[in-house]
């Protein structure tokens, strides 16, 4: 350890003893503050690592680049060989450094702007004194089955969970809280499992049910409700950064809600959690993957996507891959891998290479960096959303196409006799320079306009392109079923990296390249037909570059088959060797209202200084002899005028092709029939909605380490692999997302099950056992109950990752059933409820607040799934959208239209996250804006009135309705004092509305809902106001 010695010798050793004296008192204080029963023992993972990590690892941690003095404090061996002498603080350089007042010696150095508090200094010193025991970071070691701890109050625990919680409380000489009232419990569990309040009937049933199974039955009832899936999904959507729009700046709508419904179905069918993850990560790669399995992978396409003109596509493609990687790490592993995008992790043992190896699982799809501004194409790869009837129909149409193709071949094969007859007898000498089906001929003899120049051409004059000026035509809106040929003389001045020769499209990246095009890329000719580049296209490229500064005749032919094999390129009439670049065209290519354009494309590189001559377009796949005719001016003419018995075999063969294509009625009719069959097929597919999914590309994708995380700073090539510190993937697992998913869900994985049970614990308790669910690393907070977390994780795995079982297990515990009332002892010693000695209370999430109001008023439209709903609030969003009328106003909030650049404003006020990136936790605040929303927002005002209306229909007077009103909104009866407050308020409001019919009318006209009954307006308005006030009452909006 030469470096470490250098480190030690660099400072003076004077003040250690003095510093130690000062610290003794604090050491005592620190060890006394530890839980009773731990005998003042400092625990490395709980006490030491968080401090070392936070204050020291930036310079003395895993990051090689920034490591100072070659010292690592994240590795026991390194630390103990250099700056820590176990048991001897006064000989430990670390102690000398942290206690020194000399700015040159002191650690952390003043310039770091990091400090150790006196308590932390004392704790570290005491830890070394106690022997400096080390431990691996808990989260990177697979959980081991813990023993159930013994407890003193043996009658309290109801299941295993409680032993862990109670023993911890007892260690601290504290006690759990009593069981909450039945009203509180049914309200709590109803919101936790379904996101909705209990009905009065449900409350009564539970409160009066004396069966020992009453609670268990309630849980089962709620778990089997369809609303369970909606509730669980509303949490999962934050994590999946679900949005109904693409995000970034333009933020157009996109079609992804079928994935949201998949999530709801998955929860309702109690899909095992590991399957749930596996399908979302790699559903497309499962053996015999169904459409449902593939749909699950939309998860990895939900990140924001870019369309802004002028953006660099690769920059954003890399951003998408990074987002998938980081979401995977945060959501499933609880790791902050994004730290390693630019450099090795500062705190956790992950290298930058680990990060990019992980990205290599997520970049093997045929995607573009930008979606299409000028078309509505779904960014590839996609899944066609077909129902069974569609699938049958399309299968039938495919069969028809195949049959027509077969028949065309048979017709040609049987045409020999007719051909012979035509050769011998019917062959008329036509004008062979005028090939049939020609729709355009440009000879460029006239002086071109714009910046293009006139030049000596191949035949007479030609054109020299500026690269910035297009030559337009009036033809070329071909469908993908239309055979066509485009021929011209071409002379490229130099080896073009990229140049557009001709195209029919709405733009390059701006239009997803939809259309067809001939480009020169890296000197080679690329001919393509495209719906959305790159995943929905056919494209071929010549093997060799086009020679420069020479005229060559270039013909691109297409047969209407939507297959790459159906495109061919002939240079100087010779077929040339080509490579298939893409072969997956399954939607239309026509770019509406555009024509064929030559030499330029907006925001693309034009054919600068390239020359062209004699451009011709045919609505037919030319035969080779015709192309030869275009090139040499005589091949076809000669063959046509040669007596049939003097034709060479080759001439005969080529004339046969010519005959079939231009003359033979049977073939031409059959081709028309084939085109018709193809048109029917494409018409059936073109209208089908697509959804973005994951699909491995068969083309090789090379993944690079990116220096500083910059898309254009490529470093070494890396291959897909999981982080080195975590268990290895099994040797026979494929190096793709399926292999990754199987690694993730392997039972010995230290993180997956812990992260999962922590997630569901958070669903039930509002906060996880790990309070930093986004960070299980060394900077995160250690679990409040490490052994409980491990026990739950292992139990979860042993029970096949059964989510409903886990939730029931939690709900059945005495821990969950505690009251939320804070005892003085807890308030003093455990204000953050780290000991779980009471149920944590917190304000209901945005979705529940709104759904509650809709549910109690009976307005809630109980329909599952479907396109996003647009309630009142979307019209006052920063990006207003037209709101729905009717049912769309009253759907559950999980269905509310989510627009990233202007999310539903009520939900934002109520602490929803924006869903730009994966979030596994919501902040909870209590801003005054929340009060405006609840008391003035039309959704809540209207719901209050409809609730009042329902109650007035049942009760004769508003006064009589008060008890039910209070109970509906709090799930418990009002006390006398509370009742008198409500009575007083009602009287004031009756008085207020009784004075003025106009204000009553106004108040009663908020929202679209019209009453079925005709209650007294003042009574209705007054009771509505009481209901509205109660919506802001603690027990209505706080989960207790």
């Amino acid at each position, binding site marked *: 350890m030469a470096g470490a010695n250098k480190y030690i010798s660099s400072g003076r050793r004077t003040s250690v003893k003095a510093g130690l004296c000062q610290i003794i008192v604090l050491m005592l204080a620190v060890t006394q503050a530890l839980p009773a029963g731990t005998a003042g023992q400092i625990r490395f993972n709980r006490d030491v690592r968080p401090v070392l990590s936070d204050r020291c690892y930036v310079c003395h941690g895993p990051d090689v680049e920034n490591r100072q003095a070659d010292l690592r404090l994240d590795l026991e061996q390194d630390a103990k060989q250099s700056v820590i002498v176990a048991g001897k603080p006064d000989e430990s350089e670390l102690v000398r450094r942290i206690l020194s007042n000399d700015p040159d010696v002191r650690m952390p150095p003043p310039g770091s702007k990091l400090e150790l508090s006196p308590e932390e200094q004392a704790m570290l010193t005491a830890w070394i004194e106690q022997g400096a025991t080390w431990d691996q970071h808990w989260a990177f070691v697979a959980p081991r089955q813990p023993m159930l701890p013994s407890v003193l109050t043996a009658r309290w625990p109801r299941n295993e969970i409680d032993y862990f919680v109670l023993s911890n409380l007892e260690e601290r000489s504290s*006690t759990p*809280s009593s069981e909450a009232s039945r009203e509180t419990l049914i309200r709590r569990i109803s919101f936790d499992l379904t996101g909705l309040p209990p009905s009065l009937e449900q409350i009564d049933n539970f409160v009066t049910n004396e069966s020992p199974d009453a609670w268990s039955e309630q849980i089962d009832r709620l778990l089997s409700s369809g609303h369970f899936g909606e509730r669980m999904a509303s949490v999962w959507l934050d994590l999946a950064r679900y949005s109904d729009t693409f*995000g970034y*700046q333009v*933020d157009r709508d996109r079609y992804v809600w079928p994935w949201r419904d998949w999530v709801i179905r998955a929860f309702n069918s109690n899909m095992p959690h590991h399957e749930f993850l596996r399908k979302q990560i790699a559903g497309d790669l499962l053996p015999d993957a169904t459409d449902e399995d593939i749909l699950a992978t939309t998860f990895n396409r939900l990140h*924001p996507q870019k369309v*802004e*003109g*002028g*953006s*660099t*596509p690769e920059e954003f493609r890399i951003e998408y891959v990074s987002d998938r990687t980081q979401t995977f790490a945060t959501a499933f592993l609880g790791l902050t891998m994004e*730290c390693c995008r630019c450099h090795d992790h500062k705190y*956790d043992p992950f290298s930058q290479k680990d990060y990019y190896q992980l990205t290599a699982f997520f970049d093997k799809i045929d995607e573009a960096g930008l979606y299409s501004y000028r078309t509505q194409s779904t960014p590839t790869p996609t899944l066609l959303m077909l129902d069974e009837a569609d699938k049958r129909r399309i299968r039938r149409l495919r069969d028809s196409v195949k049959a027509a193709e077969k028949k065309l071949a048979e017709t040609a094969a049987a045409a020999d006799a007719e051909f012979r007859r035509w050769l011998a007898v019917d062959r008329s000498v036509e004008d062979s320079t005028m090939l049939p089906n020609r729709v355009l001929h440009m000879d460029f003899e006239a002086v071109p306009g714009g910046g293009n120049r006139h030049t000596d051409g191949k035949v007479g004059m030609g054109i020299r392109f*500026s690269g*910035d000026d297009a030559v337009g035509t009036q033809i070329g809106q071909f469908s993908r079923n239309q055979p066509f040929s485009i021929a011209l003389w071409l002379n490229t001045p130099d080896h073009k990296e990229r140049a557009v020769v001709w195209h029919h499209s709405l733009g390059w990246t701006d239009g997803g390249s939809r259309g067809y095009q001939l480009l020169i890329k890296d000197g080679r000719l690329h001919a393509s037909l495209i719906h959305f580049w790159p995943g929905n296209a056919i494209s071929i490229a010549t093997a060799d570059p086009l020679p420069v500064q020479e005229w060559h005749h270039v013909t691109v032919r297409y047969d209407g088959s939507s297959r790459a094999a159906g495109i061919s390129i002939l240079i100087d009439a010779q077929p040339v060797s080509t490579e298939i670049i893409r072969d997956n065209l399954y939607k239309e290519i026509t770019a509406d209202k555009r024509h064929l354009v030559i030499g330029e494309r907006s*925001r693309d590189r*034009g054919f600068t200084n390239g020359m062209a001559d004699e451009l011709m377009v045919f609505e037919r796949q030319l035969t080779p002899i015709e192309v030869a005719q275009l090139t040499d001016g005589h091949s076809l003419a000669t063959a046509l005028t040669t007596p049939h018995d003097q034709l060479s075999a080759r001439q005969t063969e080529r004339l046969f092709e010519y005959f079939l294509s231009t003359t033979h009625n049977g073939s031409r009719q059959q081709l028309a029939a084939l085109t018709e069959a193809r048109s029917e097929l494409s018409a059936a597919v073109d209208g089908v909605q697509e959804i973005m999914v994951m699909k491995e590309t068969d083309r090789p994708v090379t993944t690079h380490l990116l220096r500083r995380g910059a898309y254009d700073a490529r470093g070494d090539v890396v291959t897909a692999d999981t982080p080195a510190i975590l268990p290895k993937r099994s040797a026979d697992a494929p190096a793709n997302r399926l292999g990754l998913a199987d690694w993730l869900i392997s039972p010995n994985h230290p993180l997956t099950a812990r992260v999962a049970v922590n997630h569901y614990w958070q669903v039930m308790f509002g906060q996880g056992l790990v309070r*930093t669910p986004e*960070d299980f690393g060394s*900077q995160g907070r250690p679990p409040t109950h490490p052994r409980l977390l491990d026990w739950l994780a292992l139990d979860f795995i042993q029970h096949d990752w059964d989510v409903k079982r886990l939730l029931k297990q939690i709900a059945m515990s005495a821990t969950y059933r505690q009251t939320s009332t*804070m005892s*003085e002892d807890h*308030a003093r010693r455990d*204000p*953050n409820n780290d000991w779980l000695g009471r149920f944590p*209370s*917190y304000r209901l999430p945005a979705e529940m607040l709104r759904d509650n109001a809709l549910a109690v008023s009976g307005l809630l439209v109980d329909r599952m799934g479907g396109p996003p709903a647009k309630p009142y609030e979307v019209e*006052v969003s*920063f*990006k207003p959208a037209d709101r729905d009328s009717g049912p769309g106003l009253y759907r559950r909030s999980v269905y509310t239209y989510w627009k990233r*650049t*202007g999310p539903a404003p009520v939900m934002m*006020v109520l602490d929803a996250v*924006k869903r*730009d990136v994966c979030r596994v936790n919501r902040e*909870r*605040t*209590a801003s005054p*804006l929340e009060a*405006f929303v609840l008391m*003035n*927002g039309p959704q809540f*005002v209207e719901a209050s009135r409809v609730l009042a209306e329902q109650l007035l229909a049942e009760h004769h007077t508003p006064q009589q309705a008060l008890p039910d009103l209070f109970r509906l909104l709090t799930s418990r009866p009002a*006390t006398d*004092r509370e009742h008198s407050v409500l009575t007083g*308020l009602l009287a*004031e409001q009756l008085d*207020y509305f009784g004075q003025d019919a106009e*204000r*009553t009318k106004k*108040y*009663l006209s908020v929202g679209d809902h019209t009453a079925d009954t005709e209650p007294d307006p003042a009574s209705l308005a007054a009771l509505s106001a*009481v209901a509205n*006030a*109660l919506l*802001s*009452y*603690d*027990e209505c909006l706080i989960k207790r």
Partner: protein
Amino acid sequence: MNNSSFPDHPNRRRWLQTFGAGLGSFALADLINRPTADAAATSSLSSSAVRHIPRARRIIWLFQSGGPSQLDLFDHKPLLKQRHGTQLPAEVRKGQRLTAMSGNQSSLPLAGSPFRFEPHGDSGNVMSELLPRTAQIADELCIVRSMQTEAINHGPGVTFMQTGSQFPGRPSMGAWLDYGLGSENEELPSFVVMVTKGKGGQPLLSRLWGSGFLPSRHQGVRFRSGGDPVLYLGNPGGISAGSKRSMLNALQQLHEIKLQTSADPLIETRIAQHELAFRMQQSIPEATDVSSEPDHIFELYGEQARNPGSYAANCLLARRLAERGVRFIQLYHPGWDQHSGLRKGVTRQCTETDQASAALVADLKQRGLLDDTLVVWGGEFGRTNYCQGKLTATSFGRDHHPRSYSVWMAGGGVRPGTTYGVTDPWGYNVAEQGVHIHDLHATILHLMGIDHERLTFRYQGRRFRLTDVHGNVINGLLA
């Protein structure tokens, strides 16, 4: 077992006083003691970030969205006029990336500004004829001609300027300041956003005033023009302030009853929240009601100031909010994206903003507010010295340019009557004294009394800063 804790009412407040300090993570402190709440709630680092006496107490940021052309406003380049129509030399561009809009053009012809430039005031600060009113406050301005960013497109560019990162997810500057400094007026939001209404141009997004990973109470509150300035601020139809008061009184009584059986800070929070909301129902309309402003003020800002939602009206509102202690007032004026038709477009933009921007500075000054109010004018990037598309005698456009652009600041401790930074004679690269966005942020935080390296928030295990791991305070900008 103890499940009903402190029934006796008089002790409740004492109990809260005793234990309230330990309840840092509860929202109670947020409302009752907001200015210091975050320091207690998150870490000592936040409070220790406030290191020195601030020069500015508040910021009005006049964001000119789209990328105003510095070459036609502040950065006079006669060479471009001389070389008008000739190609951008490769040695000037040095292979830097261009946007995909003009990056594939065969020709990149230089375009001189058609506008006249002159020095103004004692300082001799130079600006073009498009800014006659701004010229009148030239001696108040600190013009930075050497701003640099990394983004070449609007979304990333604006996000960078407002959050210190090109990519979504970080808190905006106003949120950072609210987190670090808290509010000076509890009855108004401390971070207010106003967007000029009815402007097309590049779309803005609410993330620009979002709180990122900071608690969401730090997010900017957008004041709407016309109707409620704040979402659902006004009572529903038919409900008067008195009627609302009676609802709130009942609610408070219920909460008091509840408090007697369970002393929970959440309930205190709830009571305080509703009281504050009720007061804001008065204070916000009062702050946004300009009807009491005298005519000469409307003359100063321009008649458009009578048109709610206009830039001028927003500037006037900005002054009223500054007077009332709002910490961060963010205006957005879109439409500066002159890819083509620059001459007409930029003239229109200046007509809309010149007078009111200058009036705001002058008005703050005459009220003695300019000393501790920092006004910032500028956009997300500049524009190219070459023409995007065809350069013709009558029309031209400029593409996005991140390498150099101009902003100005006034008041709040910046050096008045200065021009800082020099670009090369082509107006392409910074020649001297470059100011990166991170530097601008560091400097602005410094003016607010904050050490930008100490204003941190721990999220996902890392201490995040507005300036990431970059940024230097530019002393040359300080008075």
